[in-house]
């Protein structure tokens, strides 16, 4: 790359970074965006195969410890331009109003510095921009409405059983709001029900940064550097970030910048901040609060596998097709706080067999074979549960360096008592749904998905890392966007909020750039 000076450098080209890039591409700012992974073409670089498409997950060393060590290499990660949004199930929901003020409403967790109403215009924008499909009348309108595309209508047997069970036990249910085309959009075709959403969408019916914000950013002149791993940030005597160091093709490079936007998800973002410590910032950048890396969260994402007399074939169609939001705040009536949502959630064989083994070490050999021979009779229903933020759940650095000379991160995680109560209640609810639908619930498979927190937002610099726009309290030209800034981990899937808050941050960054006199001449 000939050019070594830009107005804005974005680190990470996932759901958050790509939105920032697309927005700033319309300004006169010069923008470079780096991503540690490749820029893939769905038709040439994806395949209909689980093992092959593991390449969409982060595969670099991470130490995961605690009472409940997290899986840091699957649906909690992404590697490549588009990030984890390339392999998401694309169920896009708004958060609930109470998600932004759990401390006030239920005396647990912490309140966000913003409300649902602050995010609402961006939710509405992204609902259109991402061409969401969904029901004409979504039973829980606060989580989404006015979907520009009709709800998907070819529902799998897995989903039909799920909805039948919900109907019988008196819970509301609906087709999920999805960022998956249910009708053509320009050159893109609607979903063909191939089923491999979590392996990357070859038909390109799923809306991801790869077919929206990335091409928009490139068209607007953003320089994208794939397979460029940022190794550290350096500050100048005025205590602003001045230089971004990165490695590409094994060589060290640097970029001089006026504004840095970290959009590298919940492990790499705090890792980079902690590793970039210097004499002016001895605890790491943006870390005067001591909270960088802390309050890491996930969502519990357990499955119930139920056997039915007839064939279900859960591999058919997109994995997540229907949901109920009824238990979202069910804790108040059941002796715990917050709650969960429920989905039909089909799995392919590698994922299912892996979860069988992870949950039961005796499930090898003939045990595994006997279970898997009934694969086509299994239905899979899942919960997505809120997880309570705890300071002890955190990202820190080990003493060991990776191939780029950056300390390997250590992630410590243990569930909160409330998380376990949510899990247990969801398990019993899922079992009753399966039984009501005529199935025999056989296996409860514990899993989790998504990462949030680690650089939480807030108004008080002593108890938060960034303000509600993602701007560091300590370094005004350093922004952190995406899931790390989340204060709570609601049970609605996080990515619509990630896209929406990134848009809100992008507008602020544009204004900020004018305030500090960045005028596109870098």
């Amino acid at each position, binding site marked *: 790359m000939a050019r070594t000076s830009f107005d804005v450098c974005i680190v990470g080209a996932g759901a958050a970074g790509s939105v920032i890039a697309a927005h700033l591409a319309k300004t006169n700012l010069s923008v470079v965006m780096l991503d540690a992974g490749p820029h893939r073409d769905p038709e040439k670089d994806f395949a209909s195969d689980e093992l092959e498409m593991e390449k969409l997950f982060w595969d670099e060393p991470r130490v995961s410890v605690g009472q409940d060590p997290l899986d840091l290499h699957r649906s909690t990660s992404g590697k490549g331009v588009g990030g984890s949004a390339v392999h998401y199930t694309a169920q896009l929901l708004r958060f609930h109003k109470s998600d932004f003020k759990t401390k006030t409403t239920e005396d647990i967790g912490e309140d966000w510095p913003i409300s649902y109403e602050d995010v609402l215009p961006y939710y509405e924008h992204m609902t259109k921009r991402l061409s969401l499909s969904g029901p004409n009348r979504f039973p829980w309108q606060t989580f989404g409405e006015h979907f520009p595309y009709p709800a998907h209508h070819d529902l799998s047997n897995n989903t039909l059983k799920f909805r039948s069970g919900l109907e019988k036990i008196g819970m509301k249910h609906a087709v999920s709001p999805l960022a998956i085309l249910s009708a053509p959009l320009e050159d893109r075709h609607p979903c063909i029900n191939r089923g491999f959403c979590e392996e990357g969408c070859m038909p390109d019916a799923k809306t991801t940064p790869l077919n929206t914000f990335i091409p928009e950013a490139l068209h607007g002149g953003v320089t994208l550097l794939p397979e460029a791993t940022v190794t550290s940030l350096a500050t100048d005597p005025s205590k602003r970030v001045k230089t971004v160091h990165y490695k590409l093709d094994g060589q060290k490079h640097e970029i001089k910048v006026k504004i840095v936007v970290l959009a590298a998800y919940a492990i790499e973002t705090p890792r980079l901040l902690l590793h970039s410590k210097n004499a002016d910032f001895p605890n790491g950048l943006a870390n005067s609060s001591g909270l960088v890396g802390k309050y890491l969260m996930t969502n519990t994402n357990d499955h119930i596998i139920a056997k039915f007399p007839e064939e279900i074939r859960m591999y058919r169609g997109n994995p997540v097709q229907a949901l109920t939001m009824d238990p979202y705040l069910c804790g108040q009536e059941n002796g715990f706080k917050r709650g969960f949502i429920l989905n039909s959630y089909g799995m392919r064989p590698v994922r299912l067999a892996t979860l069988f083994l992870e949950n039961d070490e005796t499930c090898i050999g003939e045990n595994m074979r006997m279970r898997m021979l009934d694969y086509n009779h299994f239905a899979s229903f899942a919960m997505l549960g809120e997880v309570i933020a705890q300071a002890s759940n955190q990202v820190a650095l080990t003493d*060991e360096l990776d191939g780029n000379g950056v300390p390997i991160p250590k992630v410590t995680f243990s569930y909160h008592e409330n998380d376990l109560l949510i899990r247990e209640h969801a398990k019993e609810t899922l079992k009753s749904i399966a039984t009501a639908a005529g199935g025999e619930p056989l296996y409860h498979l514990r899993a989790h998905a998504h990462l949030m927190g680690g650089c939480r937002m807030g108004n008080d610099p002593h108890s938060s890392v960034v303000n509600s726009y993602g701007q560091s309290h300590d370094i005004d030209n350093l922004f952190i966007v995406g899931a790390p800034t989340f204060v709570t981990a609601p049970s609605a899937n996080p990515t619509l909020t990630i896209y929406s808050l990134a848009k809100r941050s992008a507008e602020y960054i544009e204004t900020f750039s004018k305030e500090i006199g960045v005028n596109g001449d870098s």
Partner: protein
Amino acid sequence: MDKHPKRTHYPTYDVMSEKNEWDPVTQQVLFSRIHPSEGSILTPDMKRTLQALAKTLFPSHLGEQTLSLTMVLDQRLTAKKLKAFPKGANLSKETIILKGLTFMEQEAITEHGKTFYLLDEKTRNELVRKWRGSDGDPSIWAEVHSDLFFSTVSAEIVKIIYSDPAIWSDIGYGGPAFPRGYYAFGPHQFDEWEAKPHGENLV
């Protein structure tokens, strides 16, 4: 003669018979898995040990599984697919597997005077049972505890077994579905290229 306590519901289904309907990239991925190129990480001894271990852990899938586990795992190791650390560990999956295979042989020779792959089935089973449930003999399994090795290697073997088109056929999984997708929806409706429902599939 099939000694398994349970049989496939789909004895006549062969997912590979549809391979020409798959997109070229997926066809190539499956071709490379079925005919893997030689990897460069596993030694011949390690391959023999791994093969014997897979037979001990998964005797169930013998005769049904068609992929060469050792070749595919070596291919994955060579392609640096196993760099990540398993949960709770500070070593890569690759290191854990390579060291574990070596330690297995060390203990087999120390205790029984033979390499693991030359031991009889009963002795192998006893050793594996001991290793899976414990940290292992500290004089041998110091760097990598035996239970960590077994959880790591089992997870990799399971992934490969269930990426085998022959196993997909056994469980009636439709496999790759691009560009055609699925169209027949509704109870008891399936696309005609999928496995026929039980009654129609039994010989």
